[in-house]
């Protein structure tokens, strides 16, 4: 009779207890699986929103702006914009390229001024980037080369403007003078992110270039990479090389991870995840230790007999660990399946926190409030490893106890 056979028999001898141990591991593994998918989903949506609305995968900006936390002054923008866009577009792995200008402007309303932020872009280039067309609640996107404007919904409310109205503004231009602009409101957008919807408006690049005296200039050029989130560093290198070989040494390519605080700010989340994992592990391990210790103590006499028959300490340890491994394996598979199923289901429906957060109207969160868990293969692999580690790690102590019982003493004891 081989070891696995013997271990399997022992495991099945006390079905109730085995089920109990299994449940503990299943719960831990399933929770771990779901948690991983949930946190991945949250972080990805947070990153995705940041990348989509601001950073791109890689952003080209004037080298002087890299260290700045405020918008670049208009006179320090990227010159020869059409050439830069062409170079970026022809760089390998870049799928979308869109130049933008962000400019601050005081918009006058009846009783005061609103510090607003204009985003000038080429609407047809933004379909796969900002993707604002999906968030329009009224009207449509401005079209290229017109004097049309789209407003954030809260800003529109504040200004008392709707589709069809006109908006006049004075913004300082790249020479420090005041550039007038008269725009026609064609759309209202609700991105779901309060601080944008209260402050931002969107105009075609050509109109802004004219108003701000920035012919063939932009403040930034946002690039999307075919290989996604993690392709940004590679793409940055390639963009830098192609820009440098064309003589654009004063334009820098910055991956999204190095823009602002978004990437670093998820570190506390990772810490909490680690802590929860540790606790889940301890909890499951306690149960496994308890049940296996109990079965070892109950089998003292039997283990004594095995030892008397000439089983070595190593063999006894192996036997106990094999039992734990068998339970752990079954439990891990069930746990992963449950955790993945729940995560995959919620990945379709999403978990909506909008209602919960409705009381905190003025608290601006830089992410959307519906979270879609995002399980992947690594999620399953990590959880499976975690489950087996708990089972084997926790069985180690009872296994040591089992061999410590001397054969004679074990036989005498009941």
């Amino acid at each position, binding site marked *: 009779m081989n070891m696995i056979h013997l271990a399997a028999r022992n495991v099945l001898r006390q079905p109730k207890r085995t089920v109990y141990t299994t449940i*503990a591991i299943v719960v831990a593994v399933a929770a771990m699986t779901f948690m991983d998918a949930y946190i991945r989903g949250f972080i990805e949506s947070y990153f995705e929103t940041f990348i989509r609305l601001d950073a791109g995968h890689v952003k080209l900006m004037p080298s002087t702006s890299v260290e*700045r*936390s*405020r*918008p670049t*002054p*208009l*006179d*320090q923008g990227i010159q020869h914009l059409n050439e830069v866009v062409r170079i970026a577009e022809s760089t390998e792995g870049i799928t979308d390229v869109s130049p933008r200008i962000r400019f*601050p402007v*005081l918009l*006058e*309303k*009846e*009783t*005061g*001024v*609103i*510090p607003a932020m204009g985003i000038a872009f080429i609407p047809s280039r933004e379909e796969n980037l900002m993707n604002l067309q999906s968030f329009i609640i009224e009207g449509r996107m401005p079209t290229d080369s017109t004097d049309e404007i789209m407003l954030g919904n809260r800003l529109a409310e*504040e200004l008392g403007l709707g589709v069809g109205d006109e908006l006049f503004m*004075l913004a*300082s231009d*790249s*020479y*420090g003078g005041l550039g007038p602009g008269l725009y026609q409101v064609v759309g209202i957008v609700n991105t779901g992110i309060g*601080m944008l919807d*209260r402050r931002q408006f969107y105009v075609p690049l050509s109109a802004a270039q004219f108003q701000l005296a920035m012919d063939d200039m932009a403040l930034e050029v946002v690039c999307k990479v075919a290989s996604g989130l993690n392709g940004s560093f590679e793409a940055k290198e390639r963009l830098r090389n192609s820009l440098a070989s064309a003589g654009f040494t004063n334009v820098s390519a910055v991956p999204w991870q190095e823009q*602002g*605080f978004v990437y*670093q*700010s998820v570190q506390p989340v990772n810490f*909490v995840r680690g*802590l*929860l994992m*540790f*606790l*889940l592990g*301890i*909890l499951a*391990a*306690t*149960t496994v*230790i*308890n*049940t296996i*210790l*109990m079965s070892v*103590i109950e089998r003292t006499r039997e283990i004594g007999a095995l030892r008397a028959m000439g089983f070595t300490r190593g063999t006894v340890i192996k036997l106990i660990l094999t039992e734990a491994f068998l339970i752990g394996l079954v439990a891990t598979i069930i746990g992963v399946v449950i955790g993945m199923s729940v995560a995959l289901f919620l990945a379709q429906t999403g978990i909506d926190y909008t209602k919960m957060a409705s*009381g*905190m109207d*003025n*608290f*601006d969160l*830089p992410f959307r409030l519906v979270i879609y868990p995002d399980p992947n293969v690594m999620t399953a692999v990590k959880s499976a490893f975690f489950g087996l580690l708990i089972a084997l790690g926790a069985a180690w*102590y009872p296994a040591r106890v089992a061999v410590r019982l001397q054969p004679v003493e074990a036989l005498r004891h009941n």
Partner: protein
Amino acid sequence: MMVLRLASRNLMRNKKRTILTATALALGISVLIFAMSLLDGMDLQSFENFIAYDMAHVKGLPPGRQDEDFPGLDFRIDNASDFISQIENRPGVLAVAPRLEMNGMLYLRTEETFIRVMGIDPVKDSQVFKTLDAVVDGEPITNGEDAILIGFYLARDLGIEVGDIITVMVRSAPGALNPRQLTVKGIMACGHPDVDQFEAYVPLSVAYQMALLYDSATEIDILLEHESMCEPFRDSLASEFQSIEWHTWRELAADFLSISKAKRVAWLIMISIFAIMAAVGIANTMMMSVHERTREIGTLRAFGFSKSTVRSIFLLEGAILGLLASFAGMIIGSAFTLYLSVEGISLKAYEGMDIGVPLSDALYPALLPNTLLLSLLFGILMAVAASWGSATRASKGEIIKALREGML
């Protein structure tokens, strides 16, 4: 006595299991302590900053101003000095100061940014607020001079230095945009991110010229001898000066306070997940403990130990486990918290992000005695509750079966 001895010796007997079981709860307790201290520290520091740089104790606002996102000068208190002279000599009042706030743009060469321009009476304002004490470079402004004080981050981001001449444009009360050149006299760092990033201070006389107003204010700020006097004082002002809306700083910080409460709830939910996990661990260990000692339970019952005595043995075992875990958790949690309350938690990584607290630089957790007491109670109760089922089962088993088969 014997019950206590039995309980504690049984815990000692399975040291490893006891430690493992206690670890989960201890960890939960230490997280509880840290989280509570963090929130307490956040609140205390925030309150200080609110009062010192933004709200004072009681603030008078023109009606309707508070409801506007970006209120203009239409919302203002005229003849502010009349009100101030009527208020400043009242008992309990330390100081009263007017402020005139305008949204505008700041220009330096081709740099530009939004700012909130605050016209202040330097003498009076420094009696109410600590803003002028926070000047880290250059000097505070004085009455009547053509000078401006700007926030540290603003200065750093735009490369502004003391002595630079900048242009500030605001919309005057009649409605025209009104630019004005001013010399940067000082740079302030208060540790209140809004102030350090978006605000600039000019003497009230300059603000009047920019706004084309005289003796008007957008707020009247009052500092009292004691924080506790806020509400009655607000009430008396509200009945006397009905043309002005009077608010205590707590009312003005209502959004913040409700968010702070929501944060507490969120943390409590997370901690209760920890606690449930820890409780499951304890329940499991107690179950095993009862199972292992079935024969012993039978023996005790045969000798005439009552059901309640048997139950109390196991409940006490759970309670001691909870006590040990809570103590361990208190030590770990307090040590960690106290270390950070000296070192501070750097908030520099979040610069420029609205993290919902009026703090920059560093956050110092505050370990309050209540937190410790609460977590101790919480740990013990948790452990006793988790032991309840097993303890009851131990007391209810059939004695004969327990003795014969070692099974309940």
